[in-house]
């Protein structure tokens, strides 16, 4: 049966992640449009994206926005896991850990 606290927290995480990531992307794209071709359009990864941002490269902002968007559904998995653990729903805790495990495999394969 639905749990209002679970729904409320997940909805908050999804909304926050979406607003923040799309804002980063939109601002990054606007700055990139002012100076197109200043940097090569390739995925940077977290550390390089922060470095690019520090050096004023808008591609860093765009890439951070994309990574934050990818991380948003991951954050809602973690919030669900925490909420299930608090409610002592151990079977659902196992389910959440399994999904996180598959995502971890994806991270390992993607970051080969």
């Amino acid at each position, binding site marked *: 049966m639905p749990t209002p606290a679970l729904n409320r927290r997940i909805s908050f995480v*999804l909304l926050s992640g979406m607003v923040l990531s*799309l804002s980063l992307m939109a601002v990054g794209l606007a700055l990139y449009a002012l100076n197109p071709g200043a940097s090569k*359009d390739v995925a940077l990864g977290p550390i390089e994206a922060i470095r690019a941002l520090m050096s004023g490269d808008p591609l860093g902002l765009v890439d951070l926005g994309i990574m934050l968007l990818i991380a948003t559904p991951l954050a809602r998995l973690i919030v669900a896991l925490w909420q299930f653990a608090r409610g002592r729903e151990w079977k659902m805790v196992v389910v959440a850990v399994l999904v996180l495990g598959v995502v971890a495999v994806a991270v390992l394969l993607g970051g080969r």
Partner: protein
Amino acid sequence: MDAVAALGILGFSVLAGLIGAIFGLGGGIIIIPSLTLLFGYPMQLAIGASLIAVIASSTGAATHYVDQGLTNIRLAMVLEVATTLGAVIGALIAVYLNQAVLAFAFALILIYAAYYMLTKPESVCTYPPGPCGPLDLSCSYVDKAEGKEIEYGVKQLGKGMAASAGAGGISGLLGVGGGIIKVPVMNLWMGVPMRAACATSNFMIGVTALAGAIVHYGYGDVVPVLAAVVAVGVFAGASIGTRLADRLCGPNLKKTFAVILGFVSLLMLLKAVGLM
């Protein structure tokens, strides 16, 4: 990417989000043919951009559905074990498949999507709340049109998991959300009412696309500017489409869109055999 191409891609992405929201599809079915056939991007880069857009549009809609209590979060998470596994395998296959095979597979999915749009099978039979194997995935929501609470149980979890793994595989392989498989499976096989099935599928799409997107990102198939233009455009289009959906989604429009999907699938088949 020059300014004209960026504006063109943004325009098509807004359109993809708009049409996706009106017909209850992810934007991938429109984005991928647009990027490959009109803007000349390789299938792998189009799939990478589409997966990012799919996360954006599904996250936006999921916020709304979770708030309304339509999403069966427990069922979604159980099925996500299968969809994420399928998505990782699908994405790994996509990285190594050649363009022609991917275009051919995508054309087949478009034909299925057109068929689904025309027939849209729906069951109104629900099961009473109760355990489904070791888990109780029963849920309820308030139907605002009828002004009453709908309670339902979930059955045939094994079949649902198998089909979800297939839907996840298609998502990772072809960059689409996979809702056209998950929604009928949940409704027809598992006894989930249609509105709850749509909301639950939408919720799952974010995590499914996440698993595929991470693999594509790591292999360099997510080009940041392209992906961001598509994601921002799809999100803007979906925001408008959600408000227009009830007014615009008539049977004639559905038939027209199904015919367009059939035509685009033909173009993708021509691309697959090297005639485009």
